């Protein structure tokens, strides 16, 4: 079991390297940009997969967590702090090396948060938001939970759209690179940025995060906690009777998935050099849910495969202006024909069910 998991992860690593080499040899390195972005989106989907597929809790608000991560990272690294430089807190932060200095076009000194600090703050903010919203919201089940998380997503969307601090409809641009490693002899500067020359490097940064995330979540599912999560999905009442604190496990999983989403938001924002309100939109949340469903719900590999594939196609513009419609359609088709994901598809039987006069058998509840 362990070896199978490790072989899968090694296979993924091999594939990632192979694809990079292929784009190098065929001169199609421009694909790397979308592959990098797809990797970050897949990180959101991996976290959501554990929440939906294993713990059995739906969230139609995960774009909100992605946006909390991305927007805070962007805002904290682009808003100049010099007007507050006399305040104690800014001086302390500066003294501790948590701020960095820049220059505007006139040569005046500007003061920003170090991307590391903003990254940690942004992810913590998302985790805290998940904690505070999760405690009341996760008491709900099924449709009610879906609606409540949808409400949460809407709130975040309206906040980023309405607040000047987050750039209103324009979003935030000119987000600086996120330097991960610098000043170590023998190693080049490693930074998350959309810089043309850093394309290969960023492809590997994104994919190492995906590989690490996949490995962590696969481990989790195989563990005692994973078993508890799956038992909650199987029967919450019984899990409770077995001494599993279901409320706490659901909450922790919700927070974990929010951390994955926020981390993806932070990194993708530094990679893109900005973020706009569409990233917080409801259609993004729907898209994430649709992709987890296509991947087979309780299937990390399925979610990852579909996450990369569909995001890549979408980013390449294959779906044109029907982009969101395509994901809506995918959701309908999956629910009708392959509620266990397309890897388990039995098309003919599903078609017969779907078009027979009886409607009783088609996916009554959200879990079988």
């Amino acid at each position, binding site marked *: 079991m362990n070896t199978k998991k490790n072989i899968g992860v090694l296979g993924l690593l091999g594939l990632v390297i192979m694809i990079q080499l292929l784009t190098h040899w065929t001169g199609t390195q421009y694909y790397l940009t979308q592959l990098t972005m797809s990797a970050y989106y897949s990180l959101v989907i991996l976290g959501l997969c554990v929440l939906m597929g294993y713990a059995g809790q739906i969230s139609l608000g995960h774009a909100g967590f992605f946006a909390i991560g991305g927007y805070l990272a962007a805002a904290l690294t682009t808003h100049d702090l010099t007007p507050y430089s006399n305040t104690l807190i800014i001086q302390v932060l500066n003294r501790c090396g948590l701020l960095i200095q820049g220059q505007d076009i006139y040569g005046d000194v500007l003061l920003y948060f170090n991307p590391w600090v903003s990254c940690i703050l942004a992810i913590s903010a998302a985790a805290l938001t998940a904690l505070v919203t999760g405690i009341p919201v996760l008491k709900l089940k099924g449709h009610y939970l879906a609606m409540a998380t949808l409400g949460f997503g809407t709130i975040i969307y309206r906040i980023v759209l309405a607040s000047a601090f987050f750039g209103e409809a324009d979003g935030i641009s000119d987000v600086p690179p996120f330097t991960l490693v610098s000043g170590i002899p023998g190693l080049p500067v490693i930074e998350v940025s959309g810089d043309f020359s850093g394309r290969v490097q960023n492809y590997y940064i994104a994919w190492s995060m995906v590989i690490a995330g996949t490995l*962590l*979540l696969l*481990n*989790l599912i*195989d*563990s*005692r*906690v*994973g*078993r*508890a999560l*799956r*038992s909650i*999905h*199987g*029967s919450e*009442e*019984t*899990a*409770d*009777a*077995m*001494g*599993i*604190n*279901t409320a706490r496990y659901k909450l*922790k999983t919700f927070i*974990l998935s929010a951390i994955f989403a926020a981390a993806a938001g932070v990194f993708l924002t530094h990679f893109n050099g900005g973020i706009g309100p569409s990233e917080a939109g409801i259609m993004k949340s729907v898209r994430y849910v649709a992709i987890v469903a296509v991947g087979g719900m*309780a299937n990390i590999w399925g979610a990852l495969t579909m996450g990369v594939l569909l995001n890549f196609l979408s980013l390449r513009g294959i779906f044109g202006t029907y982009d969101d419609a395509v994901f809506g359609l995918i959701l309908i088709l999956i629910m009708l024909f392959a509620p266990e994901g397309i890897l388990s598809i039995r098309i003919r039987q599903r078609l017969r069910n779907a078009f027979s006069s009886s409607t009783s058998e088609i996916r009554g509840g959200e*879990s*079988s």
Partner: protein
Amino acid sequence: MALLEIHRLNKKFGGLHAVNNVSLTVKKGMIKAVIGPNGAGKTTLFNLIAGNLSPSSGSVVFRNHELQGLKPYQVARMGMSRTFQNIKLFSGMTALENVMAGRHVRSRAGFLAGMFNLPHTWREEAGIRQKSMDLMKLLEIEEFAHKESTSLAFGQQRAVEMARALNTEPELLLLDEPAAGLNMKETAELGRLITKIREMGITILLVEHDMSLVMDISDEITVLSFGHKIAEGKPAAIQQNPEVIKIYLGEN
């Protein structure tokens, strides 16, 4: 002090007085049965004890702790485990995984330990697996360990459920109609199994319809009818009790 003491317990659902002033005690090491016709309030009583329902009034004291306000998972951690009348296995998990889930209260690995697959969790996992397989052997279901649990035959599912409950190492095991849906031969085997579990030092409280099973294995029987306790005593005495014969045994 008895292991479980129920004192003047009441539960009303709107106008229905499902459990009416019921008191009973379960002493350590005994097999106690609660019987009664359909709708007598047996399962409600069980749900009150296990914390799935909260009583309208009265108290449930387990191991000298008042259970009022505790959630089922907290009651389970105190050493009470249960099976359900309509078997509730975790679908999408194998029989073994179901039984292993019962080990939850006796193990510790958390989110971070799981995600980073820390070495100290390996031994714990191996222990959980070993203990679960041992229990499945005891209940003679080890050959189904790797089958999807809900695909098993009814009697096997019941055994898986019981193994899962036993895996929590309970002081008190609540069995909600364990013989429902079993034929006579299977019921007799179940009786032997329950006796075997008692010999492991586990106290048993069961709700049951099947009189042959109850009369064979119980040390003490409580009879409920329409929420009231109408009789209590040794099986032989219960069999002779005219009121019990009238409302319950008379029907058979």
